[in-house]
């Protein structure tokens, strides 16, 4: 189905009875060339690029629950490519470019809004670090601007510039960054993959892998056994539990990250503002709600909910940075389960089991990576070689000492 202004008017005038489901609900076949485990953003993106870009259409996406029931439905919708290290920044800039063309690629409105992201600096050292980061961004082909205090004042005059502990000294701005409608991203990719022949199978939990002599030849599911030439696992949040079924231990801990939405307010905050020194980021949705969050809670959790100390901390940060929001009421809050890796960077790689591939460890940055993760994983699954922007995301990098540690925090996931 193609959408147009005409189809919206026509269906609007006829009681919206003309809309049809945009993807099929097929029963699983006996065999696929590639089975993707996990029907979230990354799994659906992988199916889209596999079928559209790499020409592999005999593909199934197996999802335990409903499409997009994991972190693609639980994030704060921010899209950016403002990383420092070689292993990361070209990959995220590739993702940013895919975001910019995504609506055309999918013929689907993902409400991509390049409203910019501003990282605030509060000390000379932090400003210098941002200058370095901005240079790394420029070298990767991304955009970056170092703002002095006057430029920050012009842009977001309502901030508390004279906080005693964290006075604002400047900031790093990426204008091409922004937000996208998270559910629409999942739906758009699902619709496209389906239209290219991919079977999207919901309510189908993988209960085990068929592995003989070091080769994976399929999966067992709650809807029967499915054989496959290649199996790609893509279940960030539950990676350890799923890969344990293949006898693997991962350099990953699952942590909870909370997010919050306020009641709808008049347009206030033009883009995304981050207050890294205090652990707060905030933007305003098109509906007017302030969407904000802070750090992970810091302990292992699969509960999809957090605890009060982080909520208080985020509220205190908000009062420190934007005191005028003190009377805004919290509308809702939730928690998502993060694959926190040991160096804060993701993994897209083959495993030691032939035919079994792994994509995970996205920490709290999986949403922005969705297009590039799908493209790079599809490239790996189709060609057995890593995508040119994802050559360092190996599973064995910890054994080789080749970590990609943006924060330099070491092997402690709750510090990344």
């Amino acid at each position, binding site marked *: 189905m193609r959408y147009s202004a005409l189809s919206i008017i026509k269906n609007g005038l006829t009681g919206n009875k003309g809309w049809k489901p945009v993807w099929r609900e097929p029963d699983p076949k006996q065999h696929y060339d590639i089975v993707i485990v996990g029907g979230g953003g990354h799994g659906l993106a992988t199916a889209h690029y596999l079928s559209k870009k790499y020409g592999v259409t005999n593909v199934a996406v197996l999802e335990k629950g409903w499409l997009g029931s994991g972190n693609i439905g639980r994030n704060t919708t921010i899209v950016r490519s403002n990383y420092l290290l070689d292993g990361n920044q070209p990959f995220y800039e590739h993702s940013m470019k895919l975001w910019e063309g995504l609506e055309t690629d999918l013929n689907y409105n993902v409400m991509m809004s390049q409203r910019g992201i501003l990282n605030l600096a509060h000390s000379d050292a932090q400003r210098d670090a941002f200058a370095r980061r901005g240079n790394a961004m420029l070298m990767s082909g991304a955009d970056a601007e170092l703002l002095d205090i006057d430029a920050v004042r012009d842009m977001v005059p309502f901030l508390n510039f004279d906080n005693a502990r964290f006075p604002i000294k400047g900031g790093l701005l990426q204008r091409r960054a922004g937000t996208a409608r998270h559910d629409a991203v999942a739906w758009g990719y699902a619709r496209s993959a389906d239209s290219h022949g991919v079977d999207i199978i919901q309510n189908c939990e993988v209960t085990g892998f068929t592995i003989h002599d070091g080769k994976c030849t399929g999966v067992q599911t709650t809807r029967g056994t499915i054989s496959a030439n290649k199996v790609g696992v893509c279940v960030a949040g*539950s990676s350890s539990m799923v890969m344990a079924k293949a006898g693997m231990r991962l350099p990953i*801990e699952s942590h909870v990250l909370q997010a919050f939405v306020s009641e709808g307010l008049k347009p206030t905050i033009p883009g995304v503002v981050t207050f890294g020194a205090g652990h707060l980021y905030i933007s305003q949705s098109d509906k007017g709600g302030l969407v904000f969050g802070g750090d992970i809670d810091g302990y292992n959790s699969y509960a999809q909910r957090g605890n009060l100390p982080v909520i208080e901390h985020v509220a205190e940060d908000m009062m420190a940075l934007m005191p005028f929001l003190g009377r805004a009421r919290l509308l809702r809050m939730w928690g998502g389960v993060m694959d926190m890796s040991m160096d804060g960077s993701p993994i897209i790689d083959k495993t030691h089991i032939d035919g079994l591939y792994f994509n995970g460890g996205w920490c709290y940055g999986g949403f922005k990576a969705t297009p590039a993760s799908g493209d790079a994983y599809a490239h790996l699954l189709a060609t057995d070689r890593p995508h040119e922007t994802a050559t360092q995301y190996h599973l064995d990098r910890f054994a080789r000492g080749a970590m990609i540690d943006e924060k330099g925090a070491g092997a*402690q996931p709750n510090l990344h």
Partner: protein
Amino acid sequence: MIIHHPLLGPRDASEFVHLGDATLLSRPDWQADDAIAQFHEYLYQRENPAGEYRELWYHEQGDRSWLIITRNTLTHEISSVELARDVARKGSAS
């Protein structure tokens, strides 16, 4: 979360910091032939269970004791709290 400290009674979890899996108490033998592989497992690889989990917490804003807490990662329910030094003496960290 309320953590029932063995010496101080019920304390708010915000007084504590979380380190990680209790197996971190059992450091490998650095003179073993496969010490590098053992330390890689020790430092980077995690069981990461959904369910009962034994983990190290540090009472930073309190008496600065290390605790081993058994907690369910699906419900956040804490079923036991021990002083890490007692566990280490018994040699049952893992």
